[in-house]
């Protein structure tokens, strides 16, 4: 049966299709053809990811031996609830952005570079999906480099000259992060003699207390914290997000940092084991301090930003703090909160950045003072912004509330009252910075270019609104997201060791 054979190859297709597509885009170098090709491939991705997630939920984890080499010798692709969920998230975000990309890319990127943009987009998608799907520590590094390198190019394609500097900074720091990661993996390989996650998890028990393993944990932690922009290693992020083209920002903000979180989770829970990381070592207090610092410091910085895109970038740093907070709690409920926020944050930040992209299309920038009264001229766009903004604040009925509920619950369960208050308190900061934009956009008289702006074409509005509506839909019925997140948390606690 061809169909079952094809089904068996799903994990490979998930990564190979966009890789091949990227090569084609580069060869053809025609912007419309490139867009059509990229759209087709990115629409196929969620289909594959959902099919795999269904299979995982019904049958159990999928293991795929790449090239027929049996693991642990060959490269293994392994899909369980944790990364199955992540694959769905990345591929869905990648697909939703594509229809939006056509107009936005046409407006923001020079004609002769647009095909290359799509090429890089597909490469980045392939890299992120590969990082999520592989069960091989070194293979993960390779995909990390693929995604990062293409991301540097995506950012450098931004109109703003500062984008180039931002991309360069990100290049340096991203490389340092990746290097630290690969040093960590090297140490682990030296101690265990394997690169396969499952295999490594079994062998690490014997050498757990050795110095190289501890060093490996430190290297991987810091490397991944750089990649996921945990305060105070976040400094590359605001510049990169601000300078990048709107489409790239929306895509990167909702996927790239999430994959880094996933790898960190994988190493903490599946390989080193929760008991070792959180009970024997002081990871919880350190991570907690950094998370809380991120939640507050970055939110406060966001309040004072004059550029809305930059403001949202700082807000992303703060939101990453919530996710790492969930990890630091190291309880099923806390971790559920972290994972569900990973998903929810992708939805709301995607919607916010896409709404901003619509604004940029019409008024050519995202400076707050240029956006005066824009809500009256672009009501549909800015309404989506408000909904996603409310979600960011955590208003009941939106996804933000679901995440914060679980996180607060996790904090209370651990007996940390003050932490629950800090979680709620920091969301009040989001009220301020979102409120600022709402006040300027809706309650001031339109001036300058904002006075002539109109809502963007439907190809951009519909994707934005799909995400904004998802913020409400998954906020009212959190059954799917919270359910899968809870299962993922359980799977993580169960570990890979059988």
């Amino acid at each position, binding site marked *: 049966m061809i169909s079952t054979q094809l089904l068996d190859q799903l994990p490979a297709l998930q990564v190979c299709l966009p890789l091949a597509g990227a090569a084609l885009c580069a060869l053809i170098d025609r912007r419309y053809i490139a867009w059509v090709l990229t759209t087709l491939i990115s629409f196929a991705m969620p289909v594959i990811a959902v099919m795999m997630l269904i299979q995982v939920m019904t049958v159990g984890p999928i293991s795929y031996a790449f090239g027929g080499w049996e693991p642990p010798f060959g490269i293994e692709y392994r899909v369980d609830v944790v990364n199955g969920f992540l694959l769905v998230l990345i591929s869905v975000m990648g697909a939703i952005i594509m229809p939006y990309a056509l107009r936005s890319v046409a407006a923001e990127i020079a004609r002769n570079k647009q095909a290359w943009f799509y090429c890089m987009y597909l490469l980045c998608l392939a890299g992120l999906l590969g990082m999520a799907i592989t069960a091989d520590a070194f293979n993960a590094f390779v995909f990390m480099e693929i995604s990062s390198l293409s991301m540097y190019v995506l950012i450098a394609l931004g109109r703003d000259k500062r984008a180039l500097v931002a991309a*360069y*900074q990100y290049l*340096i*720091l991203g490389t*340092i*992060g990746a290097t*630290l990661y690969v040093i960590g993996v090297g140490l682990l390989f030296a101690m265990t003699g394997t690169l396969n996650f499952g295999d490594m998890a079994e062998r690490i028990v014997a050498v757990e207390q050795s*110095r190289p393993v*501890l*060093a490996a*944990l*430190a*290297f991987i*932690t*810091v490397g991944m*914290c*750089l990649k996921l922009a945990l305060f*105070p*290693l976040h*400094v*590359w992020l*605001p*510049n990169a997000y601000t300078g990048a083209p709107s489409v790239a920002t929306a895509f990167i903000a909702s996927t790239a940092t999430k994959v880094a979180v996933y790898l960190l989770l994988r190493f903490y829970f599946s390989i080193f084991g929760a008991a070792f990381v959180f009970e024997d*070592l*002081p990871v919880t207090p*350190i991570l907690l301090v950094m998370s809380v610092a991120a939640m507050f*410091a*970055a939110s*406060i*910085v966001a*309040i*004072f*930003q*004059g550029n809305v895109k930059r403001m949202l970038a*700082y807000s992303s740093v703060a939101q990453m703090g919530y996710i790492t907070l969930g990890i630091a709690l190291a309880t099923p409920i806390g971790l559920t909160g972290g994972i569900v926020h990973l998903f929810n944050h992708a939805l709301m930040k995607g919607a916010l950045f896409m709404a901003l992209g619509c604004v940029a299309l019409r008024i050519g920038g995202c400076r707050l003072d240029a956006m005066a009264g824009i809500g009256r001229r672009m009501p549909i766009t800015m309404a989506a912004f408000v909904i996603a903004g409310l979600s960011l604040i955590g*208003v*009941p*009925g939106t996804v933000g509330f*679901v995440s914060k*509920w679980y996180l*607060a*619950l996790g904090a*209370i*369960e651990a007996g940390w009252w003050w932490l*629950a*208050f800090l979680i*709620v*308190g920091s969301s*009040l900061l989001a009220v301020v910075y979102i409120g600022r934009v709402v006040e300027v956009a809706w309650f001031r008289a339109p001036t300058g270019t904002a006075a002539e702006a109109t809502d963007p074409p439907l190809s951009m509005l519909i994707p934005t609104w799909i995400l904004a509506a998802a913020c409400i839909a998954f906020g009212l*019925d*959190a*059954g799917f997201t*919270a*359910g899968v997140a809870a299962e993922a948390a359980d799977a993580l606690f169960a570990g890979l060791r059988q």
Partner: protein
Amino acid sequence: MIETVFPPGLILFLGAFLLPVLSGHIRSVVALALPLIALFLVWSVPDGAALTIHWFGYELVPVQGDALARLFGTVFTLMAFAGGLFALHRDNRFELAAAYAYAGASVGVVFAGDLLTVFVFWELMALASTFVIWCAGPSAWGASLRYAIIHLIGGVVLMAGIAAHVVATGSVAFTAMELGSIGTWLILIGFLINVGAPPVSAWVPDAYPSASWSGAVFLSAFTTKTAVLVLMRGFPGTEMLIWVGLYMIFYGIIYAILENDMRRILCYSIVNQVGFMVVGIGIGTEMAMNGVAAHAFAHIVYKALLLMSAGSVLYATGKSKTTELGGLFRSMPVTTICGIVGALSISAFPLTSGFVAKSMILQGAIDAHMALVFFGLTTASACAFLYVGLNFPWFTFFDRDSGLRPKDPPANMTIAMWLLVALCIGIGVAPGLFYELMPYPVDYKPYTTAHVVLQLQLLLFSGLVFFLLLKQLRHTPTITLDFDWFWRGLGRALGREFDGLSVTAWERLTGRMLEAARRFVAGIYRHHGPQGILARGWPTGLMTLWATLLLAAWLIAYYV
């Protein structure tokens, strides 16, 4: 799902969003139809959980019917109708929408069967009511900000309490709670903030009179009474509430006597009247709870009537200080009559709704053998007549002629007032049907000789006092060095003794807090502002250094 019902609050809440885009007759029709549909839906909710939703692991009951919910639902939707009629020609197109959203959220709380639903609608109420105040224009922004801050704080406390309660008990069901755990305490505090309990009673007279002539009518009805309802459900028979309530009663009286602004007087009396209800909840017997429910119903109606009457005066003259008013009965007969009926009701005159309702709380105190509480409540009733029943209509409509000759307000406003007059008197004359609505079977006869005589004695005596002390009670815009000064000075000193947060002190306090906040923000700005260390672009080398330092820190932490 047991049976498909439409949540009654939701129709008002969602319908509110239609109002700003409609205009002309269609808007009027929709505005009047929405509360009536909601009223119909209130009565179509069956007893017990009528709608359940599974929301990650918890069973939420957004709609749960019982007698109490129907009673409050009825009066809330009736109020929305009367208020909507009253405010029909208000020129601000957002105010009525916000008011309906506010009413809808209140009805949502009324029918909530679980704590999460309560919280959601609770916050929506706070948002919508802030918006109502806001619609009064720039003069109300300061007050609306203070109002929003206090309710946001209340919301945070409530949410923390609910989370703690849910963790402790594992259930989100909204049932009577025992004080003891931190969760229930926080929930109680959250509720009490909305009820206007000390030490934050001042938010009521601070915020409500800042609303427009129509907005205040809505505001008076919902927030405090919703809080009374949730207290009835959550904390019946909690003894502490008796003392909280007594405090509120006397706080309201003392400040109302000293106040000059007619709508402010009425707002102090809200605190006073809600105090009665809180005392009743503290007593917690069936008789007392019936009394609380009945009093809440009656109070909403006559307080709205009084505020409509005051609102009409404000609408017609643009003034609300009693020293600038007086003698209006000549040109505003309808408003005067309506104001008097409201005043008689609030004083619990026989044949008005106040009489048949309030006396049940008193009876509850007698039955529970709480002599001190009974005397306190009786004194307060006498005072209520003095400070609102006579104070408001006398100085506004009679007394010295101010020379103003405004006309009675337009027809829709007078019809709304007549409607409430009919309710006040109808309930007072034939309380039978009204008692049917109560949560517990009523075995109480209001019109016995003893009750009527006692009440008339109180009223006549305090009436006598009022006219004897008329000169001293007359409000003055300036302080004159007379006996008057002594009385007002003493009263004010007494008031300070009772409560450090009079409205002026409240404003001073918030002013000081704002100043401190400004300084705090300036400090934060230094580090977090665009030029601050945290927001500047760092040189790449510095970032690398940081990464290295952090790596070193982690290594040390692991090795040690």
